[in-house]
């Protein structure tokens, strides 16, 4: 049953993606028009869709910064944090 459902969705991938985009837009619209923001602690939280930008930005920053840290040649030499799998066996 689970497999059938997943295959059903995969066969209609374009529609699924469109639906997801609509969902994203709805979430932001809800934030802009309906959400009561008096529980917010700081001023930027009152901006429209602040947390949406925050989430997207956080995701991009985390991926790019982490990959940079992993691939960067540290100490000006050959050392990278992402090392070959036999690094400790050599």
């Amino acid at each position, binding site marked *: 049953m689970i497999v059938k459902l*997943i295959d059903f969705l995969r066969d209609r991938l374009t529609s699924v993606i469109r639906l997801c985009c609509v969902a994203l837009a709805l979430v932001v619209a809800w934030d802009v028009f309906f959400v009561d923001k008096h529980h917010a602690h700081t001023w930027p939280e009152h901006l429209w869709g602040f947390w949406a930008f925050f*989430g997207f930005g956080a*995701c*991009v920053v985390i991926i790019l910064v982490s990959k940079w840290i992993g691939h960067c040649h540290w100490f000006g030499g050959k050392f990278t944090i992402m090392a070959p*799998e036999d690094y400790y066996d050599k």
Partner: protein
Amino acid sequence: MINNLWVHPSLVLMLGGLLLPFVPRGVIRRLYLMAVPVATFLLIYFMEHGTHGVVPFMDWSLTFGRIDSLSKVFAYIMGLMCMIGTLYGLHVDEDAQHIAAWFYVSGSLGAIFAGDYLVLFLFWELMAFASVFLVWFRRGPKSLATGYRYILVHTFGGLILLAGIVLQYKATGGDLSFGPLADAMGGHHGFSVHDMSVPSLATYLIMIGFILNAAVPPLHAWLPDAYGEATVTGAVFMCAFTTKTAIYTLARACAGMDILVPLGVVMALYGVVYAVLENDSRRLLAYHIISQVGYMVAGVGIGTQMAINGAVAHAFAHILYKGLLFMGCGSVLYMTGQSKFTELGGLYKKMPRAFIFTLIGGLSISAFPLFSGFVSKSMIIAAGFEEHILWAAFLLTLASAGTFLHTGLKVPYFIWFGKNNCSKETWEKAADPPWNMQWAMGIASFLCILIGCYLPYLYNMLPFQEEAHHYAELVYGSYHVSETLQILLFTALGFFLLLKKLVPDPTISVDLDWFYRMGGRGFYWLARKPIQTVDNGVGEAYRYLGLIPLMTFSRFWSWFDWNGIDGVVDGIARTVRSVGESGRFLQSGRLQSGMFYAASVVAVLLIAYVLN
């Protein structure tokens, strides 16, 4: 028995473990395996608040059972996880694996109920020495070395803790009771009313002992090292007990200690960064333990009632969803023999149920509304905002985007979807795991959803009830739900846009364990080169100055022997040889079994002593 028939739950697990080898195989053994943790859990469940199990020992009185709102909730979740973990490992034939796991849990329960530092230390060490077997029993090419690293790091942490305890003993003039360290408080209202002062060396040492077990960088590298290498069921146990027991001790002793806030935030981010780089699914989950425990450490550091509630609630929820995630990835490893993303992919057709369970774990850890993380993690962040520690609150929110990115998206995507990297053999072996594993995952999934949907279940157990009820009214408010949905859904958008960047590489990530792994190598080199050279020199000298004359001398005696007293000596020689044989047998016993017997003997002695 002692004090109105109070039975320590650890005692049930230890005795149950020691009797396990005598239980006949088959259905009876399976029933027995479930009965022992269930009995332990019931014992915890019906335990009444108060001080029990006070035993005089030399000049001290040791307290084995301090039951209050804080220790009870931790013991409850540990007992619960012990049942789920044992069910998950029900198919394991080897008695020793169950015994090690149960001793490990007893260590954790003993530490939680400990009313003074001596008892705490005793169970603290039991935890380390029992859990290392869960690594060794994997019996892989790296297990032995990994286990030794694990136990050495924990021995080091234990020694620091002990040093702190000794200093504390001196400073307080002989008071070893395990409670809030007076000088750790930042003037907050956690479990203490003391004013702010500069923490003493004793306080720092005790705290360092605790945060080593909580895997706070730079003392964290043991965690992914060991948890990635443990047995399938061993990792399920390990991910629950060590770090969360440490959170309990921190909440008990160091609530409101300011330094814990930055440490916790660093942890939360550190785990996220390494999770991006990681290729092994179980090591990725291990890095996310560091990240999640970071929230709890920060919560303890903030130290308000709301923050302590948050740390406790998050520990409770975390044990269940992280156990679930380790069970999900563990079942993939158990069935296919693979745990690396570069060896897996596209498995949804073969292991659909494992996928659903892991997804539920992923959504819970990511704090999706209606799942457990949503009602626990947010409490810590909200406490940060309320105390106006804005930088910490924002950074923890950032880390929670990273949590969803990896555990909610990367793990399910690259194991069950994505590019199919499975070898033919892996693909053929892949299938949903045995019934007991599925049931364990099902129960954990149910609890994750229950906590998220039915607030009183968890909130009624929290130490500060008034705060908990107050927060219960806010948690499903429209602002909080909208905030979370925006963060999570837009993180998902970022994930799919940057998917190409996230395809795992077949690499390992060098962490701070480099220092002791390579440091150990330096020591080997020292042993091999200079020391060996000296040793060789001495050997050579001995050969010329000692051995050659000796040989000549012995040749004479050999002649004498042949021609004189052969018959007499023969008998003696045979005796000596047989003694030598038995000596060899004793010596060849592995260090691990030696340690295990020693630990068992200590446990039995302890039990006998308490029962007196």
